[in-house]
């Protein structure tokens, strides 16, 4: 609580002569203080004790998230990586197919800024990794968005309506979960992927929504029994309104956290596909493709697989850390440490 306004006003009233009307200097007393307050026209900061300074949900969330050092660090790291990847033309010291004939098969060095070394043809791996990251991130974002949309919608519908709708949707989800992911992914990627990041992303997304659908369904099942949902229904709100305006915002936490997990998983999956040669078409360098290329000379040029590999691990880890931070920040029962 701030101090009451009176003590603040009074010394001023006595020090400064009264400016306006009311017979001038005579009234430099307590009275003057009162008059001044009236005349100045600006209402002083007034508290009757009913103004409550409370933090909004969002402020609380932001506070907790910003305090999570690991998550903030990871966030910063991801931001830099993302910016670099999408401005690869400007950031990368070389083009991804540019050949430095003099510096072939060089281990990481500052000479000529071959930070991640070069391959047998003299292509700069640092630049190739940056370009590769761009592809990986593109695929990951497509996957995260599409699978979140599908998973949330189907999970919400299943959890809200229960009964046979729930049974059908969840058995469908089960079906996708029990299918051997990589095998199906390989087949689909081979037939429909055509080496384009968008298509690869959609294919991965179509196979990765069930986990989120299950989570959202679970949350909806518990939320639909909440009193405020009953209250909304009693106020005449329709199904769609209740689902998407009342229940969905209460599910944002799990959805966001799961989104980060999907993001990380998608990067790994895309790398796997690329490694197996079914991802993005060469010569576009995808991270998995780079590892695959380096595989043959693994024993002599270790950096060719270590560097792209480390990049994949770092990105996936960072995304997971951000997810951790989000989960902690979104959990209202979590005490501030």
């Amino acid at each position: 609580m701030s101090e009451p306004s009176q003590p603040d006003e009074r010394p001023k009233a006595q020090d400064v002569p009264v400016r306006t009307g009311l017979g001038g200097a005579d009234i430099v007393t307590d009275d003057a203080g009162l008059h001044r307050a009236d005349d100045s026209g600006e209402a002083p900061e007034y508290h009757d004790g009913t103004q409550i300074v409370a933090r909004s949900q969002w402020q609380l969330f932001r506070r907790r998230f910003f305090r999570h050092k690991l998550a903030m660090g990871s966030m910063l790291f991801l931001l830099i990586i993302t910016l670099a990847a999408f401005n690869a033309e400007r950031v990368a010291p070389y083009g991804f197919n540019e050949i430095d004939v003099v510096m072939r098969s060089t281990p990481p060095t500052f000479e000529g800024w071959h930070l991640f070394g070069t391959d047998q043809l003299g292509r700069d791996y640092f630049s190739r990794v940056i370009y590769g990251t761009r592809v990986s991130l593109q695929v990951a974002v497509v996957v995260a968005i599409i699978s979140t949309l599908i998973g949330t919608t189907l999970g919400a519908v299943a959890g809200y309506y229960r009964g046979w709708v729930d049974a059908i949707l969840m058995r469908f989800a089960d079906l996708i979960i029990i299918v051997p992911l990589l095998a199906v992914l390989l087949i689909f990627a081979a037939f429909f992927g055509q080496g384009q990041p968008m298509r690869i992303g959609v294919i991965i997304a179509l196979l990765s929504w069930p986990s989120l659908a299950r989570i959202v369904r679970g949350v909806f099942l518990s939320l639909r029994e909440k009193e405020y949902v009953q209250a909304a229904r009693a106020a005449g709100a329709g199904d769609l309104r209740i689902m998407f305006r009342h229940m969905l915002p209460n599910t944002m936490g799990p959805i966001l956290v799961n989104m980060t997990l999907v993001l990380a998983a998608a990067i790994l999956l895309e790398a796997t596909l690329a490694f197996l040669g079914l991802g993005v078409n060469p010569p576009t360098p995808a991270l998995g493709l780079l590892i695959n290329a380096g595989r043959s000379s693994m024993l002599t040029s270790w950096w060719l697989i270590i560097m792209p590999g480390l990049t994949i691990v770092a990105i996936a880890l960072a995304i997971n850390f951000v997810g951790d931070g989000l989960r902690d920040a979104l959990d209202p029962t979590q005490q501030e440490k």
Partner: protein
Amino acid sequence: MGAEPQFVDAPTGVADAEPLLSIRDLVTEFKTPDGIVHAVDGVSYEVFPGETLGVVGESGSGKSVTVMSVLRLIPQPPGRIANGQILLDGTDLLQLSDADMRKVRGKDVAMIFQDPMTSLNPVLSVGDQLAEAILVHNDIGEDAARKRVVELLELVGVPNADQRFDQYPHEYSGGMRQRAMIAMAMANQPKILIADEPTTALDVTIQAQVLEVLERAKEETNAGVILITHDLGVIAEMADRVVVMYGGRVVETGTVDEIFHSPKHPYTLGLLSSLPRPDVDMERLVPIPGQPPSLINLPSGCSFHPRCHLGEGRQTCRTEIPPLFELGPMRASACHFHEEMEDEIHRVESTTGTAIEGDEA
């Protein structure tokens, strides 16, 4: 209490009017693994415009299920409205399509829930939730809705309503939230206002304020209020007429004064004599023996007979389900031996050492 003229006027004045809401022979059941729960078993009562109808009874007596049936908010897979009519202005709500029913909820029939802590959505601002209640039923702009909400909040006594509009439920105290809930319920000028234990979850010091707000809401909307509670003090304070429920059935109806001064059902008497009263010096309280009945397996005959002193050892009570005996306008009792209640009251009076009947006359 003690408004003696009401005692004379209320029944006759009310009897002339058409009932706003009339529940007829309502049966609501729930299927459970243990059997069918007869939560509401042939309940009938009526609500008139501008009156407050108190519904009393212990937990599981079917008070809430009855009003949830009125709104058709019974979860459908386990629950089922098996029989009855719910006439609102002559329309049977049970026959309406889901879409039409949605138009009734929150507009013609509005509800105030028990726990204001959980009945507001934590992620939406209070103002938005109130505005939503208006926007669902009225084709007006957001600004107009906001204006109306601020008016409503002021009406129910929320200070700084304009700032409070944008605050979230966790920034409201319990009493303020219940005020907001009342504002939400009266937003569309409902014909029927259902308050399901509106003060049970609140601090005692806040209860009186909230009841006052509820009273104001009633006057403002001229709605018929159904006030569900197990707090007889609240009933005495607020209600014009009372419906006493037991085991999913109505056991007694009457005006507040009739119920409090000359109960015609042993269960009502039991409720009254088991309650400490600050205004009277009672020697001892008389509890109602036994347990509330299982709604899966109701006792045969009068469902109160295993706990009843009056019916002890009487064959009729054990075998015959008592009908609601009409005892006068708006006055009824479901006791085979309601004529003997006079003696029963005297017996209880001698135990408690206070008069039940006419103690304030």
